[in-house]
């Protein structure tokens, strides 16, 4: 069993977002970088669990980014995984990123490709679906449970207002979310081992970039919170009904 886990570097969830250079760049001043939580907590840990069950499993990690991604990918290796690939290119275009991952996947051949349900920076939730299309595999998104029976997987995924259970033959691409696994903390042995695990830097395949960021905006500031006294609940309800027309 060969698994590819896609890892993305994102700002920490507590980051106060600000922009610079005329709102064209994220102001990285003071930003802590983390592994995208969905990649770390769910897809990577589920892959590790599969390897714990079947030690012949091989886990590859991939990220598309510059050398500043190395600490992130090393941390992912410390949690688990055998070998990592960093495709040396900076891009915010989903198609470009997905095509790089698909290129690696087509060369190496994986039974399973895992992503997080979305990255918490661009929130596009697009990479998994695009990679699936480019490698010609089925795609199960928003998965909460994954069981493997030989070359067949049983996957529970969230749908609007519920969930569905699907059976699919490998290879398959899956995006993972809460329920899939429990967050783990890297231990000392893992951190030491990660130092010597192979991290290959590979140059990107020639792929077109189809979108570009023109600029960023912050949401307009709120007018402020209208406070109502605790002994005047009727006034709050009246405001919601008549002023805000909210119900």
């Amino acid at each position, binding site marked *: 069993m060969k698994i590819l886990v896609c890892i993305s570097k994102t700002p920490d969830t507590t980051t106060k977002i600000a922009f610079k250079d005329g709102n064209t760049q994220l102001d990285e001043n003071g930003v802590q970088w983390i592994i995208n939580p969905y990649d770390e907590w769910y897809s990577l840990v589920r892959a590790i669990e599969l390897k714990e069950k079947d030690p012949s499993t091989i886990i590859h990690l991939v990220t598309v980014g510059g050398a500043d991604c190395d600490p992130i990918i090393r941390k992912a290796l410390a949690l688990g995984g055998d070998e990592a690939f960093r495709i040396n290119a900076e891009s915010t275009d989903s198609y470009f990123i997905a095509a790089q991952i698909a290129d690696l996947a087509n060369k190496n051949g994986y039974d399973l490709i895992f992503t997080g349900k979305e990255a918490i920076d661009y929130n596009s939730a697009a990479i998994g679906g695009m990679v699936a299309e480019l490698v010609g595999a089925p795609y199960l998104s928003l998965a909460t449970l994954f069981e493997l029976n030989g070359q067949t997987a049983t996957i529970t995924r969230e749908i609007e207002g519920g969930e569905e259970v699907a059976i699919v033959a490998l290879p398959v691409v899956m995006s993972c979310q809460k329920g899939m696994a429990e967050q783990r903390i890297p231990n000392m042995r893992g951190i030491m081992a990660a130092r010597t695990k192979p991290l290959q830097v590979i140059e990107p395949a020639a792929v077109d970039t189809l979108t570009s960021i023109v600029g960023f905006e912050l949401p307009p500031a709120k007018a402020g919170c209208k406070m109502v006294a605790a002994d005047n609940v009727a006034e709050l309800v009246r405001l*919601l009904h008549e002023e805000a027309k*909210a119900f």
Partner: protein
Amino acid sequence: MSVLVYIDQSDNHVKKSAYEVLTYGAKLAAQMGTTAAGIILGKVNDNLAELGKYGVTTIHQVSNERLNQLDTQVAAKIIADAAQATGATVLVFSQNHSGKAIAARVAARLKAGLVAGAAGLPDTSNGFVVKKTVFSGKAFANISINSPIKVIALNPNSISAVAGEGSATVAELNIAVDAPKVTITAVNKITGEIPLTEADIVVSGGRGLKGPENWGVLLDLAKVLGAGTACSRPVGDAHWRPHHEHVGQTGVQVAPNLYIALGISGAIQHLAGVNRSKIMVVINKDPEAPFFKAADYGIVGDLFEIVPQMTAEIKKIKGIA
């Protein structure tokens, strides 16, 4: 050059989010000086011609019953083929559970630039620039799509569906349907609940409710408002409420017209998932709770006293005994 809108369905009915994307597609077509059509996969019990009232001229249907079960690979091929057959240059999806999966596949298949999570209509005055939410709702990015074919997946609840007059021509599309590779063996719908991402009003509870046994006050309020119910992450983690109710940066992202937060402090990760709500109301006993900085209306006080009064007042207005 035309616009093609994917019409999502479940349980043999067109979904509410489809009305929004049809409205969006029609407006975009008018802006581009062209027409918009819809595409629906599978069989439904609704009268599809009526979807013309959202401004689309044609509904293409592939009424193969196999398509009522979603296999994104099969669906994406049909939609991409349909786009090519009808000369569509912009494809519009809802960024909902199935829409985001299909949109990504279609974009890759057509080598079309994708903006997933669009917050409004594109600016077509100089190129094609779409605004989208980024950093979990903490900011927006304006993205230029530079490829000839473009795919947009629109955030649910970011525009209102506008129904006018008109009826659409419903035409069966003759496109080969591949055998699915995914077999769906069970569908478990949570009955009697309003799906969170489709709810106009959401009532949400945090640790301030103290325990699952206290949820009655919240549920009563939700009931009179016809609201969906949500919770903060610690509440989901403690299994006071089911996981699918957890909203925030690492949970469900919602954008209802009205979000009522009860006993939630308003941590940055919580706000990230709810701050696209039009109106936010906070009930918290701590005047320093950060949520008051983000909210539109607030009461500092004990939710166990205030919420039942809210429910009673709303009943009066709605004339419910």
